[in-house]
């Protein structure tokens, strides 16, 4: 049986009693090693889910388990050691006065020996392309540089679960690809489960499964191929399908028969080539 790393059981949450519920009876589980994307319209509850996972918020109803342990005020410190999160706005998470100190912080907290710390700081800053900025102040970096440093911070601790809340939104196109590759690599190497909140459909396509949120409810959990086959439903909840899926849609209207729902350029081109050879 697959090992469940995060489980939400009938979780409901509101920020204050005077405010509406923002999560409504949310249930899902995420397996160890899995790459899950969470998508949904603005205000659908994605960041709230992320904050509940590492105990920054506590649900009024339902239960959240990490690694089989219920998240409670008593367990949360232990649980947080295994979770690394990058917030939507990295300014909210910088603690160090230099880039290097900031990456060191998570390692110190987890009691890594000095030598290992130095090694990891160097390695992860290199991975995110910020090695030239080790002594800069995190608050005086450009928007994308801040995101890179925040990502280095979680890579360094290599936790069991990495949550990225729109953590690549400010990166240049190549940078975004590179970080995705790095994440993929880390996931393979360290058996990390990887939860990615994003509006970027190109990133969603690479996930194992996608959780679709709408108005505080889970409306769909499925692999990307199945998700993007339901164009109308997605568009109704303020979402969209990727370029390739749109093209496939139009090709199908013209009577081109594609055998499966291609998700990326390679898959679509391969199918088109096959059809071309059979013309």
């Amino acid at each position: 049986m697959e090992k469940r790393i995060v489980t939400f059981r009938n979780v409901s949450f509101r920020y204050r009693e005077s405010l509406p519920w923002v999560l409504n009876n949310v249930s899902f589980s995420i397996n160890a090693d899995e790459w899950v994307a969470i998508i949904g319209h603005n205000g659908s509850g994605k960041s709230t889910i992320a904050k509940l996972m590492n105990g920054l918020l506590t649900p009024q109803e339902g239960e959240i388990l990490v690694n089989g342990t219920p998240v409670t005020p008593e367990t949360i410190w232990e649980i947080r050691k295994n979770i690394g999160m990058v917030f939507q706005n990295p300014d909210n998470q910088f603690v160090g006065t230099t880039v290097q100190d900031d990456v060191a912080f998570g390692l110190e907290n987890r009691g890594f020996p000095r030598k290992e710390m130095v090694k990891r700081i160097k390695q992860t800053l290199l991975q995110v392309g910020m090695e030239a900025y080790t002594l800069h102040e995190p608050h005086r970096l450009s928007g994308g540089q801040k995101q890179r440093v925040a990502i280095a911070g979680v890579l360094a601790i290599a936790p069991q679960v990495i949550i990225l809340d729109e953590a690549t939104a400010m990166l240049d196109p190549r940078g975004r690809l590179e970080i995705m590759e790095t994440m993929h690599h880390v996931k393979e190497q360290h058996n990390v489960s990887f939860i990615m909140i994003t509006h970027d459909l190109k990133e969603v396509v690479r996930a194992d499964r996608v959780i679709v949120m709408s108005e505080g409810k889970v409306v769909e959990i499925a692999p990307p191929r199945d998700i993007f086959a339901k164009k109308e439903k997605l568009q109704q909840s303020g979402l969209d399908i990727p370029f390739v899926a749109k093209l496939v849609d139009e090709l199908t209207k013209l009577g081109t028969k594609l055998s499966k729902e291609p998700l990326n350029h390679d898959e679509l081109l391969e199918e088109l080539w096959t059809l071309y050879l059979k013309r």
Partner: protein
Amino acid sequence: MDIIFEKVSYVYQKNTPFEHQAIQNLSFHIPSGAFVAIVGHTGSGKSTVIQHLNGLLRPTKGEVRIGEYILSSDQKIKELKQLREKVGVVFQYPEHQLFEETVVKDIAFGPQNFGVSQNEIEARTKSAFEAVGLSEELRERSPFDLSGGQMRRVAIAGILAIQPEVLVLDEPTAGLDPKGHREIMSMFKRLHRENELTTILVTHSMEDALEYADHVIILDHGTKYMEGKPEEVLIQKDKLQAVQLDVPEIIQFLFRVENIFGVKIPYQGQSIVDLASELNRLIRGDGSSE
């Protein structure tokens, strides 16, 4: 208002050990009424450029001219407030520009500050609130008790309410959901067209630069790397990839088609629907695209 950068350099924390040159000898000219995209790698100097446009920063060297206003190292603008009424800037992180108690107060702040009449403030706040697709129940909410995308919308609405002549947008769609992204970009385009609003868009989306801008400036390490029409600049794959960028997805795809089928389908601003019929002809061997 024409915007002119004349050999501009900017150095952060000058004369400290942390001195950092963010832009270097940068010159360009944005004519009044243009829609320009500024694109470049992380840290290439885009936000630094933008902060000159409303006088938040002054050039260390060179000169910035915005209409009749001139900024240089020895020339401070006296009419800074006037300038900020004419040039509205949406910053990269919306948190940096929100501060009022409620969402509506935040949107009303700009026009209030510039002495607009009460009736007019209310009208502008209402229309800006609607234009960015915020839902009614958020009106009296603190702008800090919002989701990331909702904050972004409030920040945009606050600038729209000022009704500036120049709209400067630093990654305005980061954090917006796909529908919000489309709607808000189309709104900017419409404002640009209908009111001849000069629009400067900093973006990492090559697709948006291609679709919305009529001129693109590419920065690399604080200098100008390329400049021109989007459909001419944004097809130069090797040059773009050399500076951490890429061609828009549709053009990436057309390059792959050319590689595999040995047939070139040129990019001519075609929609996905048009592209589908071109591909359909190609795989049926109609050859009409050759």
